[in-house]
């Protein structure tokens, strides 16, 4: 009688082992793929902002609102989509900080346009927190004076309030002795809204127009890289 390997055990082991090896191999491939993505895929680094700029992570999604631009056309969330928007809240009966900020924005607009590797052209929007006095007609004489491309926005007090609240913009009427001479206290920050209509960053005074243009370039490039 000679020894013979049992066909049964010889056959059953490779099957069992093959199946296991196959599964193990598959698992290894998947793990490897996942790992290599972790190890070899470099997400673009989060851009470093200047001290005046704060990035919101994640950006804040905004609800629709119904305002008017200085030409009397409807201005809603749709007008904030497909391009970046610099937004400032102020009023035309403001002698100092509002015209100063509009001049600042005009300088930012020029600097962004002059940057190498030009980022997409943003729009610039001045929202009145004094809709009682700031009609579209009055904004039309005020806002484009600083730059013909700038957009003035006003609307019903409720519409302005709805927009301001979502952007954490505060404002307050300060009565004066002069009739119709009241002043407004208001948030001084500039808001940056991304092409999805989300609040993406805040810029606080004192404004440095060179740094603002650079921050915008970095943010817009980063935004495109992670899409």
């Amino acid at each position: 009688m000679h020894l013979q390997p049992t066909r049964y055990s010889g056959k059953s082991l490779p099957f069992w082992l093959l199946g296991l090896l196959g599964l193990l191999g598959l698992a290894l491939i998947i793990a490897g793929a996942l790992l290599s993505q972790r190890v070899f895929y470099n997400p673009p680094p989060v851009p470093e902002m200047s001290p005046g700029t704060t990035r919101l992570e994640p950006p804040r999604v905004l609800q629709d609102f119904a305002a008017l631009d200085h030409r009397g056309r409807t201005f809603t969330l749709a007008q904030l989509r497909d391009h970046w928007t610099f937004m400032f809240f102020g009023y035309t009966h403001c002698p100092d900080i509002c015209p100063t900020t509009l001049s600042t924005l005009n300088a930012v607009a020029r600097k962004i346009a002059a940057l190498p590797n030009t980022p997409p052209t943003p729009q610039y929007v001045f929202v009145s927190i004094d809709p009682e006095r700031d009609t579209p007609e009055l904004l039309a004489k005020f806002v484009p004076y600083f730059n013909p491309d700038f957009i003035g926005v006003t609307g019903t007090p409720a519409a302005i309030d709805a927009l301001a609240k979502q952007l954490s913009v505060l404002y307050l009427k300060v009565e004066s002795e002069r009739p119709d001479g009241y002043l407004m206290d208001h948030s001084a920050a500039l808001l940056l809204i991304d092409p999805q209509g989300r609040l993406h960053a805040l810029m606080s005074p004192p404004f440095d127009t060179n740094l603002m243009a650079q921050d915008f370039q970095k943010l817009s490039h980063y935004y495109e890289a992670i899409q």
Partner: protein
Amino acid sequence: MNRHTRFALALSLLGSIWTAAVQAQDLKVSDAWVREAPPTSAVNAAYMQIANPGAKDIAITGTSSPQFETVEIHRTEIVDGMARMLPQERLVVPAGGSVTLAPNGLHLMLIQAKQPLHAGDHVEINLEIEAGAALKIDAEVRPDMSDGIEGMDHSQHMQHMQH
């Protein structure tokens, strides 16, 4: 400042014209300008440097201009992200020192222009000194140069606006 204070001040001025004249001369105003703003603006601002080389503090207690209904001293302040303007009753120029009126800070608020102003125009502003004298200032209307807003840029915008 109410009417009574003004009247009381006017009376007190009479007695101190000589002192006042000396004091007013002690203030040296330089680089006075008014921002070129949309001609329809209800309000505007004037900026300048005021130096006091004398040995006594000098307080400016009133401001006026024949080209505006009212001129007030204000200070823009940004606290916790909120911008506000604080009317100032007086502006003290310290002895041997100076105060700067500049965008986003101290400024003269020009209210209700009697005629629209354009770049190159001149605005007469009167500073009333506490002791009674007045100092007449000539401020030129010009574009805000605080961030390299070139005059050319601005004139282009002006032309655009007229279309």
